[in-house]
C-alpha cells in the first residue's frame, strides 16, 4: 500500500466511523506538527485551521501540566474532543447526546486499531523515525582523496546516492500532498555528515562526482585537508549521512 492509498484509506475510515456513529458531525486527524492528515468530506479547511490554531495556543500554556493527551469541551449544543494517539491527534465534533462509551470506542479502540493496521501495510511509518532508524539512511563509502587547487571544501558523491537522498520521504508530507493535490517538493541534499570508524565526524557540503571514471564505484571524494582533520586516508571506509 503506498502513501496515497493510506490517505484514502484513512479518509474512508473516518467516513465509515461517521456512518456508524451519526452523532459525529465532524472529524479530522492532524499530526503533532499540525499537518492535517485526513478529514471527512464535510469538515471545511477553515474550521480545521481554526481548531488547530486554538489547540496550538492551549498546548503552549499546558506545559504546566505536561503534554496534552486529550481535550474535551461540552457546550449546550454539542461536544468537541481532541485525543492524542501516538503522534496523531483525532478531533471529533459530536452532538451533546453522544454516549461517552461510544466516544471512547472510537477514540481509544477503533481509530488506534485502524492506524496500526494501516501502518502495518505501509512501507514507511507515520511516526517520525527514531534516531537508529534514520541511521539506515547512511551509506558506507570508500574514501578517495581530492587534491589540487580546485579541490575546494565540498565532498563528492555518486549522483545516484544523492538522488535517492533527495526524495522527500516524510510520510506526513506525502499524505498531505495526496489530500491537497500539492506537489511534493524534493529538496536537494546540500550537506552530509561524515563519520569515521574511529568516531570522528564532520559536516560538509556535498556535490556530485564530476570525474566520469570514478562514478558508480561507491566512493566519496574528500578534500585532502578534510581527510587530515578526520584522520583518514584513501581506501578507508566512512559513514555518510544526508543532513
Amino acid at each position, binding site marked *: 500500500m503506498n502513501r496515497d492509498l493510506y490517505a484514502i484509506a484513512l479518509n474512508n475510515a473516518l467516513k465509515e466511523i461517521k456512518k456508524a456513529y451519526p452523532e459525529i458531525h465532524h472529524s479530522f486527524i492532524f499530526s503533532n506538527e499540525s499537518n492535517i492528515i485526513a478529514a471527512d468530506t464535510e469538515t471545511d479547511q477553515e474550521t480545521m485551521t481554526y481548531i488547530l490554531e*486554538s489547540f496550538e495556543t*492551549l498546548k503552549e500554556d499546558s506545559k504546566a*501540566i505536561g503534554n496534552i493527551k486529550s*481535550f474535551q*469541551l461540552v457546550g449546550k449544543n454539542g461536544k468537541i474532543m481532541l485525543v492524542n494517539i501516538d503522534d496523531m491527534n483525532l478531533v471529533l465534533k459530536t452532538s451533546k447526546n453522544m454516549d461517552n462509551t461510544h466516544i471512547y470506542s472510537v477514540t481509544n479502540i477503533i481509530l488506534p486499531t485502524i492506524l496500526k493496521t494501516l501502518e502495518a501495510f505501509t512501507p514507511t511509518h507515520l511516526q517520525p523515525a527514531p534516531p537508529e532508524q534514520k541511521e539506515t539512511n547512511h551509506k558506507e563509502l570508500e574514501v578517495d582523496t581530492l587534491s589540487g587547487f580546485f579541490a575546494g571544501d565540498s565532498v563528492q558523491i555518486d549522483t545516484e546516492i544523492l538522488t535517492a537522498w533527495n526524495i522527500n520521504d516524510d510520510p506526513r508530507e506525502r499524505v498531505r500532498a495526496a489530500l491537497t493535490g500539492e506537489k511534493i517538493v524534493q529538496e536537494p541534499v546540500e550537506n552530509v555528515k561524515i563519520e569515521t570508524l574511529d568516531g570522528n565526524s564532520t559536516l560538509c557540503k556535498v556535490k556530485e562526482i564530476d570525474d566520469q571514471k570514478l562514478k558508480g564505484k561507491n566512493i566519496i571524494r574528500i578534500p585532502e585537508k578534510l581527510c587530515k582533520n578526520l584522520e583518514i586516508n584513501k581506501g578507508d571506509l566512512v559513514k555518510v549521512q544526508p543532513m
Partner: protein
Amino acid sequence: MTKNKNENLQEKLQEIKDKEGIIGYILRDEKSASIDLKDPKKIIEYAMLSSTAFDVGLNISEDLQMGELETILLESEETKLLSMNIDEQRLSLFMEKNVNHEKIYKELT
C-alpha cells in the same frame, strides 16, 4: 451571585480540595479570585492555563456554534483540569488523572 450561593460553593470546594488526588482550584469572578493550590509555586502557570482554557473554550463554542459553554476537560499524562462556569464564576479544578471528574462535577452542580 447571591451570598448564599457563593458560600455554598466555597463550602463544597473546601470539601473537594481535601479529597485524595485533588491538586487545587482557582475560582474567579469579575472582581476577585480565590486560589487554593497544594503547590503555590505553580500558581502563575496554573492561573495562565486556566485563563487560556476558558478563552479557547469560549471562542470554540462561539465560533462553532456549540452553545453556552458547560465544561472543559484537559488531560495530560498525570494531571486533569476541569473547568466550568458556575453561575457567574469561572472554576478550574486541578486533579490527578485517576480522580473521577464526573463525580466531582456532579457534586458541584
